[in-house]
């Protein structure tokens, strides 16, 4: 990524509201043409950072560069960073056409060109025939398309989106997000997308930045974020996770042996900087564990855990099991449930060792 051209560079940025530190010393490079997602729980500062980029707030500290120009004090209307607002913010007194054409008109674009560009947007978003309607005469999904069209029609290098899909129903969300990704690839603009929906983030992004309390905990590809979270927070926020506390008892390249309670778990060495006796947390996703009814496993079979099924819940594609084993409870997803019904009683868990991830405990 380092060789790529950086379109927006954020450097030690901070923003406070009163006494509240909403953005806490964030640095971030956004490569040109990439699809970057801000992911994090409510109130962690995603919107604030987006609005800092759009110029609605001024940073208290740090710098924002746009194509290598410092834009800290550039007013919003000179930034060319169209934003799709969470609540759409369509102009209620303008019809669909006028809404989409608003930015172009301000730029004194020739009438003919406005007509053409707006028409192509209407076509792309399936809004033909609705040009003369007013926002309140549109459904939520249609309004949301107009909001996209209004921002996209500007033809800028950057598109900012603040939870643009949150008002859509589940099915529509998936449709629109795939459409959006296709669009972004077609036009090649840089997209910054805010969401607190992890599925959305994983499915749409080149890069995900996970936020917590005004800081970015990790930036990485969806795969990295999911399988190699750097902190417990990231692991917990993105997907369901089994956390297993343990201690390194053997460094046996290419494996690290970790003793957790009375089980020994083998973790493949992937540049983890651990020493003997380090306290670590293992991150194991529920779908990386297989469950079987056979109970008498060999003593030395690696990454096997004996347990008792506490409860189970049938979710259609999967069955989720809660398994008690010693002092800990595992969550396990079985993706190929048997038609005869969920397992019960004593079982054995087998951990897919290639997907066991290790987080070093922070020294406090």
């Amino acid at each position, binding site marked *: 990524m380092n060789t790529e051209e950086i379109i927006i560079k954020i450097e030690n940025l901070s923003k406070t509201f009163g006494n509240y530190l909403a953005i806490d010393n964030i640095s971030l490079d956004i490569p040109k043409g990439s699809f970057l997602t801000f992911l994090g729980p409510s109130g962690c500062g995603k919107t604030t950072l987006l609005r800092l980029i759009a110029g609605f707030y001024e940073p208290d500290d740090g710098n924002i560069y746009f194509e290598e120009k410092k834009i800290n004090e550039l007013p919003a209307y000179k930034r060319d960073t169209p934003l799709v607002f969470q609540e759409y913010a369509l102009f209620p007194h303008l019809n669909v056409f006028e809404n989409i054409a608003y930015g172009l008109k301000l730029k004194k674009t020739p009438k003919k060109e406005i007509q053409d560009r707006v028409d192509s947007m209407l076509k792309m978003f399936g809004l033909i025939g609705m040009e003369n309607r007013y926002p309140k005469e549109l459904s939520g999904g249609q309004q949301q398309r107009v909001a996209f069209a209004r921002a996209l029609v*500007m033809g800028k290098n950057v598109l900012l989106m603040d939870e643009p899909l949150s008002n859509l129903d589940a099915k529509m969300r998936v449709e629109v997000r795939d459409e959006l990704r296709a669009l972004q690839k077609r036009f090649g603009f840089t997209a910054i997308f805010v969401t607190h929906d992890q599925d959305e983030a994983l499915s749409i992004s080149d890069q995900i930045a996970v936020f917590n309390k005004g800081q970015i905990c990790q930036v990485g590809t969806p795969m990295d974020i999911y399988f190699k979270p750097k902190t417990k927070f990231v692991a917990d926020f993105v997907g369901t996770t089994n956390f297993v506390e343990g201690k390194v008892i053997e460094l046996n390249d290419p494996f690290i042996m970790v003793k957790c309670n009375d089980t020994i778990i083998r973790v493949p060495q992937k540049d983890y900087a651990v020493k003997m006796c380090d306290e670590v947390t293992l991150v194991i996703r529920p779908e990386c564990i297989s469950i079987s009814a056979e109970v008498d496993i060999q003593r030395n079979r690696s990454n096997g855990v004996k347990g008792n099924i506490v409860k189970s819940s049938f979710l259609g594609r999967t069955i989720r099991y809660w398994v008690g084993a010693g002092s800990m409870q595992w969550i396990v997803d079985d993706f190929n449930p048997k038609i005869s019904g969920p397992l019960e009683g004593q079982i054995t868990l087998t951990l897919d060792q290639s997907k066991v991830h290790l987080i070093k405990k922070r020294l406090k």
Partner: protein
Amino acid sequence: MTTTILKIVTRNLLFYLTFGLLLLIISTFVIWPILKVVSFAQLENFSELFTNSRWSQAAIHSLMMTMISTLSCTFVAFIFAYTIARLEIPCKGLFKFITILPIVSPPFIVGMSYILLFGRQGIISKQLLNLNVDVYGWHGLWLVQTITFFPYAYAVIYGVLKKSSPSQEYAAYNMGSTHWQVFKNIVLPLSKPGIAGGALIAAMSILADFGNPMVIGGNSTVLSTEAYMQMIGWFDLSSAAILSTTLLIPALGLFLLNRQWVGKQSYTTVTGKESYSSHYPIPSYIKWTLFSFCMFITVIVLLVYGVLFYGAFTTTWGYNWSLTFSNLDYVFSKGKELTNSIQFAVLSSILAGVLAFPLAFIVQRKKMGMNRFLDFLSVLPGAVPGVFLGLGFAIAFNAEPLMLTGTAMIMVIALTIWNVPTFYSTLLAGLQQISSSLEEASQNLGANNLKTFRHILLPLLKGPFISGMVVTFLRSVTCLSVIVFIYSAKTSVGTVSILGLVSNGEWGKASSFTVVLISIAFAVLGISQLFFRNKRNANDY
């Protein structure tokens, strides 16, 4: 650190200049006149309030009248509001119409009609019953104030009742409550904020009223009329100041109470959406009792206007009942007063808008610490009784550096200031409905502040602007209390002429003058309504 402060200041230069200018204007035309009056009244002279029996009588009358009239106003208003909001009855349109009538009428109109009906030459007292009673005094004033001011309380109570959904009532019926229990346990508690707010509005208006006590108070003056007598009769500025200040104290108290208690929840929007939901059927005897009560009040109000129209075309009220147009001719011969009325009202409605907009904008949109203070200043003139404000202007601008006595300017400025609070509240409510993300979206698409204002805010605020201007116009045309101390021969207006005619007993001319004023007001209201109907209502958003 200082450089960043400097930077912030220069970037927002226009904003700080506006802010400073607004503060200057408010200090000059609100704070300064108030201080002038208050300081004019020497502290030791206040003891006269207790020794001078006329004055203590006036003070007691003011308080008593406010108390009993507020009670009766609120009672009538609640029945109106409940009946209109909750019951399935005919004539709702008529009842609603009755409640907007006083807003387009001069404030003393009910008093005048009362005399035309029950006075010495009254059509009922003299013509029908052949009595010779003294109807001037507090009984009459009580009735008159009730009829005049219940619509103000009604507007607030109705707003609250309309907003609360009847689902709780349904739930209560569902659990087996009787109608009376539902009313006592659900309806009444839920309308409490409305009732309190309505009562406070009514109390403030009654306390400050000048027109009606002037017309029918007779010998029992209230504080506002006593102040007027002192000033006009004896040119006793100091006494007028003491009486006005005495009036200001309870008025401010009510005002603060209103702000504290009722807060900002009771904004009644002009273009409110009516939500339709069927209500639980009330037993028909209750329903028709309430209906009859409303009808009775309605008939009285219609009688008020009817008798006025009759008076306008009667040769000499009480003696010669033949019809004539000569009164109307007289009104048009006094064209100067009429054009003054209209001119001042138009100018002040524009100026009030010019002043109210930046105030509302800064308070609503700029987060900058001073907001509460600025908000307070913007509504402060609404707390000051009209008579007090007028007296303040008369004292404060009768000397250099601002020598305005007798000019049209002082009239326009006084009316402007007096109307800023209503205009401001209307715009503030309008702005609150416009999400600030619309402005951000506009900037985001490349519009600077000015363009955003022109293309987004202005069109969206059209509704509140127009209704603010209309209301200001109506209030200015029908205003008496504020200008009664500051008009001159050249700048006299319709309401002042009417007061003069009334005190000379020239009822025909007074009525026809009033009728002409009301007609103008109605014309303006009608035009604005047409305008509202034709335009796409962006505020529904």
